[in-house]
């Protein structure tokens, strides 16, 4: 389960660099951690904190007014690199629910929707404009029921989510819940036929 995403009202942080990879979002040295909760400590660790562990005042999420922001407006290639899902978990753990960027690492984007993190691909010019609005402190408003994004009270775009994806966000279902709720009968049916066709795959070894 992730927390339902129905309505969101938040400022956004602007991280305009190209290719913010999953190593930047979640440095490899934390991969030996075995929990999912609390990984937020590691999010952007090398940028958010200085060598001695103090907050880096330059990092947008550390600025007064933007602390706890739930939206990131990022640069192209956000989430590229290693497939580690920890990157998504860490973002969700610090409260991020929406990332807007011109494009995303393919696996990162896939991992995001499985964990209740909405990723929105918008044209580079739009992202640049939204970045300025983010820095000006305007409010980003997401309405999952109406499938709309407003910034500073003005409509930016529709979300264009398939009904199933929308439902998953509204209910806080992640993909495991969705398959369990919807597909287990189909899986069992398939399994019966599959067992008949390739019995050796099911023989006890």
């Amino acid at each position, binding site marked *: *389960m992730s927390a339902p995403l129905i309505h969101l009202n938040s400022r956004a942080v602007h991280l305009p660099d190209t290719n913010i990879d999953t190593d930047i979002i979640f440095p*490899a040295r934390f*991969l*030996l*951690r*075995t*929990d*999912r909760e609390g990984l937020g400590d590691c999010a952007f660790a090398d940028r958010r904190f200085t060598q001695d562990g103090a907050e880096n005042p330059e990092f947008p999420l550390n600025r007064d007014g933007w602390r706890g922001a739930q939206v990131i407006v990022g640069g192209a290639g956000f989430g590229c690199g290693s*497939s580690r*899902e*920890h990157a998504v*978990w860490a973002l969700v753990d610090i409260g991020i629910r929406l990332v807007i960027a011109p494009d995303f690492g*393919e*696996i990162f984007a*896939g*991992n995001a929707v*499985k*964990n209740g993190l909405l990723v929105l691909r918008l044209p580079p010019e739009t992202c640049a404009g939204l970045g300025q609005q983010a820095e000006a402190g305007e409010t980003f408003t997401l309405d999952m029921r109406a499938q709309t994004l407003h910034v500073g009270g003005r409509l930016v775009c529709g979300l264009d989510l*398939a009904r*199933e*994806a929308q439902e998953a966000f509204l209910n806080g279902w*992640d*993909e*495991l*819940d969705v*398959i*369990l709720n919807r*597909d*287990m009968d*189909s*899986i069992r049916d*398939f*399994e019966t036929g*599959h067992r008949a*066709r*390739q*019995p*050796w*795959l099911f*023989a*006890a*070894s």
Partner: protein
Amino acid sequence: MPRTLYDKLWDSHVVRSYDDGSALIYVDRHLLHEVSTPQSFQALDSRGLSVHRPEANLAVADHAVPTLNRDRPIADPMAARQTALLQRNVAKHNIPYIPLDDRRQGIVHVIGPEQGFTLPGMTLACGDSHTSTHGAFGALAFGIGASECGIVMATQAVVQRRARTMCVRLSGDLPLGVTTKDLALRLIAVLGANGASGHAIEYVGAALAGLGMEQRMTLCNMAIEAGARVALVAPDQITVDWLRGRPMAPKGADFDAAVAYWQTLRSDPEARYDRVVEMDLTTLAPHVTWGTSPEDALPITGTVPDPAQDDDARRAQRRQRALDYMGLEPGQALDGLAVDVVFIGSCTNGRLADLEAAAEVLRGRRVHPGVRAIAVPGSGLVKAEAEARGLAQVFRDAGFEWRDAGCSMCVAMNGDSIEPGQRCASTSNRNFEGRQGRGGRTHLVGPAMAAAAAVTGHLTDVRKLEILT
């Protein structure tokens, strides 16, 4: 409609299709290791779920485990915790587990085939991108994320998108001193690191008859470095002979029935691929990477490229960064670059045939005094067999460290790593910045080339070394 092998494997596993073009795919087998599954089990436990078919899973610790002093507790507390947690999780869910002190322990992608857990025609998933390795058997095998590992355990299915297909046609025989690793590196250089993304690669052609299962695994293993999540070789007699009698493979009449089915697993003659690439093996030279992406591969006779001559500005920028990181100058000859470390192992080149290829070069020679050389068999069984055949002695006599099985210096999570600025000739699959240790410089090579670098102290053309007997 004529279908490719990929189509046949995909079609035979679709549970249902969704409106957005994706499909729910039945997963026959799931391999687990310690690093990518702790959170997957949490997802199950927090919902009170059990594993749908425990016997369809097989677990082993490989990434973070030490390759020395196995009789002692793991020294790194986090690695110790992660390994102990895997053991607790699999015990709780009745998942078959190969313990650290078991001879069968090893890298997931080595032990799956070795045990006959991997079979033609099946779908196989693992929380690791090099799962493409198992496609060498004609299995639809792909890496998945940690959430998906939990989904597979709970439901035996996972959502995937159908890939486009790419046919790589191999003709001719590999020349003496050239291995499938060289072929794999060449292919990545031709396609580019993302050149095959979104595609499933199928290797076809006359050359395959000359490639054993271990070599086919090396080829499929490296496909992910060209961006392909799936790689395939159609099963043939070599596949069947290799699998017969494996502990977890079907037995007796079951095996015969399976073989009859496996024989249908080939692309129809009229089947169309989205892309076709031809590769002639006869002119291939030993390859080595000079940069920080597997696509930065060149024949050992080549020289470091000059980014200033590059007409693609983005590539020039990346290449310049790679040269700075690697401490290289444009125009420098690759042959002759001094190395500090040689690593032979990994799921790419840690099998018996790989150790044999290296030993052939090492026999009667000594590792260069300035080089630290380490050999890490891909599994305990590979290690035992190498010892029984006298290969281990060749490595030891030459001055190699002979270790226990694991991922080791391929990913440097277990304490086996290189120092900042050190140069390493490595038979692994990724030369990313810091992959083998912070600041470490990796040159990817095949096992014979790695052995040649170990004895001469520098990257060199293995074809120049006489084979001593």
